[in-house]
């Protein structure tokens, strides 16, 4: 009896062990198979996801280089622009793209609804100035779908942008925006603003025309941010809390500043060439010959005796003139202009009685500059002279009587070189641009525009293509951007833009766009300052000096009104949403 029992135990034991081992092996295999399947599936999902991203980038590239891409049904061609790793076919008579990305073992279908050039929401619900892209990618049976909305981005997204440092030397600094979604100041270099960590914060993010803090406000820098001289890196929470917005020092993100060209700026199409050079308002010694009518009365009215006389006289004194120097640095002016009716700066001799009128008969300017060819230059002009290049054009006027340069509205005044208006002695001139938002004037110079000696008023555009732009603009008051125009000023320079507030009192307001390819410098002359629009120092620094309370107000409407679209149907896009 024992023998069969022993045999049975051994067999059962072996079977049990085998069974357990088999179960464990099966479980291990199952678990590992699940794991491998998960990893494989995850890989395929990642590949499909990467393919979606690749297709998105491809379509973005196409749209940024041609904003009309996909607006008309495709003709069924294979795309030759795509990288060799990507094969794209435009499906005929549709707005669909199909293709494959062999490296990702993925095929894709993309549907584009391009509404970028349209001012209204499309019938399919794509918002104005936007494009909807739906992408489905398949990698070995695993599908991923992405839907994304992209729209035209502003060329400049901040009230101030600089590749260099930014220094706001002011009593207070307020960053505001009329854009509902962005209120930014960006700089790649150091940013120095008034204090925010101690006492009453003097740098704040606020809603426009309000003291309500704006939580979307941000000062962003790739370098350090100093507030009141203190590096705020260690006190960011306090700085943010005190300012109502956010400081982002030492940011690692990339941002680009659009390389604006002079040709990107909206200008009146009609161009009037003027003589390039320097227009110098100064005082010169002159020998003046004149005749004065005067009378003498005795007693009280009705006078017992009245004597009328005309007396010629001659005097040598300083008088206001405008000198024109065709070439910079030349020792004597090319021409000199003097109003023949201007008398306010001439002192007649003491004549008997009261002078009724004076007529200047001759003015000879006496130059004490060695080598000055005085004989060639005196011009006794009418009250107004014209500085047009083309004789007889008579559009760009200099009012010698009142020392004003009046630019024709709706026209572009163009100088083939520098255009400078300077003051050596005497009163500064006034340079009058357009008087209304729809009557703006423009000066475009191939070199430098220097209007620093005069005061510039009105609305318009100043473009110094390859040189500096120096001016003292009057502070304008109202802010108005309409479909007919805008009330601001565009200041563009291929080099530096240097502004100076002509007044040391009140509030200086600048509306518009300032674009300096290099540096921007502003002397606030101790006044409060408000800059509405955008300020750009593309490859240089921004310096606000001697300012009271400084307000930056981002206003994208100015950009739209002042700039043309990019050439060749190009456009910059940004993503509004990404759905997957």
């Amino acid at each position, binding site marked *: 009896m*024992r*023998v069969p029992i*022993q045999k049975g*135990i*051994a067999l059962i*034991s072996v079977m*049990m*062990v085998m069974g*357990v*081992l088999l179960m*464990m092996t099966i*479980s*291990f295999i199952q*678990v590992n198979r699940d*794991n491998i399947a*998960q990893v494989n599936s995850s890989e395929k999902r990642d590949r499909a996801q990467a393919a979606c991203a690749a297709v998105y980038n491809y379509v973005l590239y196409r749209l940024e280089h041609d904003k009309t891409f996909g607006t008309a049904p495709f003709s069924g061609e294979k795309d030759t622009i795509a990288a060799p790793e990507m094969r794209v076919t435009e499906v005929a008579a549709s707005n669909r793209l199909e293709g494959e990305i062999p490296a990702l073992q993925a095929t894709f279908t993309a549907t584009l609804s391009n509404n970028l050039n349209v001012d209204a*929401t499309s019938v399919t*619900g*794509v*918002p*104005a100035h*936007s494009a909807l892209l739906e992408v489905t990618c398949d990698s070995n049976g695993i599908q991923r779908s992405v839907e994304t*909305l992209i*729209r035209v981005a502003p060329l400049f*997204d901040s009230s101030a942008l600089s590749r260099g440092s930014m220094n706001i030397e002011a009593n207070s600094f307020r960053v505001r925006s009329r854009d*509902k*979604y*962005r209120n*930014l100041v960006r700089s790649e270099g150091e940013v120095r603003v008034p204090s925010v960590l101690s006492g009453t914060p003097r740098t704040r993010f606020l809603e426009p025309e309000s003291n309500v803090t704006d*939580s*979307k406000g*941000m000062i*962003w820098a790739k370098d350090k941010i100093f507030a009141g001289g203190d590096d705020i890196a260690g006190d960011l929470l306090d700085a943010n809390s005190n300012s109502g917005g*956010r400081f*982002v*020092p*030492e*940011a*690692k*993100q990339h941002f680009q500043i659009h390389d604006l060209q002079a040709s990107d700026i909206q200008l009146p199409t009609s161009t009037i060439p003027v003589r390039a050079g320097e227009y110098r308002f100064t005082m010169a010694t002159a020998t003046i010959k004149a005749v004065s009518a005067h009378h003498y009365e005795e007693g009280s009215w009705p006078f017992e005796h009245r004597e009328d006389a005309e007396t010629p006289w001659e005097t040598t004194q300083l008088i206001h003139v405008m000198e024109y120097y065709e070439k910079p640095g030349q020792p004597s002016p090319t021409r000199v202009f003097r109003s023949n009716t201007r008398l306010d700066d001439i002192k007649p001799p003491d004549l008997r009685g009261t002078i009724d009128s004076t007529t200047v008969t001759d003015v000879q300017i006496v130059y004490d500059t060695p080598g000055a060819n005085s004989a060639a230059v005196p011009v006794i002009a009418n009250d107004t002279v014209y500085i047009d290049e083309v004789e007889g054009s008579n559009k760009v006027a200099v009012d010698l009587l009142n020392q004003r340069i009046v630019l024709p509205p709706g026209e572009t005044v163009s100088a083939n070189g520098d255009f400078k208006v300077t003051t050596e002695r005497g009163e500064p001139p006034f340079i009058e641009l357009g008087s209304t938002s729809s009557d703006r004037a423009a000066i475009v110079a191939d070199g430098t525009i220097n209007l620093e000696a005069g005061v510039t008023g009105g609305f318009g555009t100043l473009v110094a293509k390859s040189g500096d732009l120096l001016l003292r603009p009057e502070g304008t008051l109202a802010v108005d951007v309409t479909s007919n125009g805008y009330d601001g000023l565009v200041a563009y320079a291929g080099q530096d833009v240097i502004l100076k507030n002509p007044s040391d009192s009140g509030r200086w307001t600048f509306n518009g766009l300032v674009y300096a390819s290099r540096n921007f410098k502003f002397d606030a002359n101790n006044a409060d300052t408000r800059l509405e629009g955008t300020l750009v120092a593309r490859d240089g620094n921004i310096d606000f000096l001697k300012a009271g309370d400084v307000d930056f107000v981002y206003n994208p409407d100015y950009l739209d009104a002042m700039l043309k679209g990019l050439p060749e149907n190009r456009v910059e896009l*940004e*993503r*509004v*949403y*990404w*759905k*997957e």
Partner: protein
Amino acid sequence: MKTEACSWRHQVASGNSLLELVVSMSVLLAILALVVAIMIYGVRMFGHTSLRQGLEGDARRISSRLKKDLALSDFHTVSVQERLVSGLRRDGVGLGSLSDWNDPSNFQAGLGLPRWNRYTVYYATQEATGRLVRQDIEPPGIPLAGWNSPYSALSSNLRDDPTLNTSVVSSTVLSSQVEHFECRADVSENTVTVVCRLREKGQNVAGTNKKGDESIQFRLLLKTKNTWPDI
């Protein structure tokens, strides 16, 4: 025949000697002991592997959900609440989200921007062994344009009992083995970094008398894809 039968009986009788029985039983016992040891080793190995794979599964689930939720969110709505328990972080992170991505009314007319109408909150409870909770929160008074700023009540809505949190519309426990959950929103890079360590004690480790103590740590660097305007 009789002689053969007697011979057979003799052989059987000789196999049943005590010595043979002891030897055979010893061999059998040794085999059984070996088999049992192998079984125990295998079971412990299996348990250990299951423990590790359980943690890996939790990690995969957490990272997959976090990745997706963060990717679909807007950095302007992200906030982090730091919390410390015995030197370990049990943070909470809140991010704007949408109740339904396919509902057109959840997008601003004319612009197409998502109207963030809820917040998704991830947080680790502060118990000895924490749980990682994911909740969708719909605070009352949604602005017309949606929530464009971080969740203001984040710090007060991270209770150890997730059912006591307010305005919760859905709640999931993604792991019950959280030791460390650290979040950092870095505005300078527009990223959210999450460091998560899961830890679980199990049976004895195969071949030792030590209790199984498995942990897995992962670090995610996440970027939102719906940050508009871009920072």
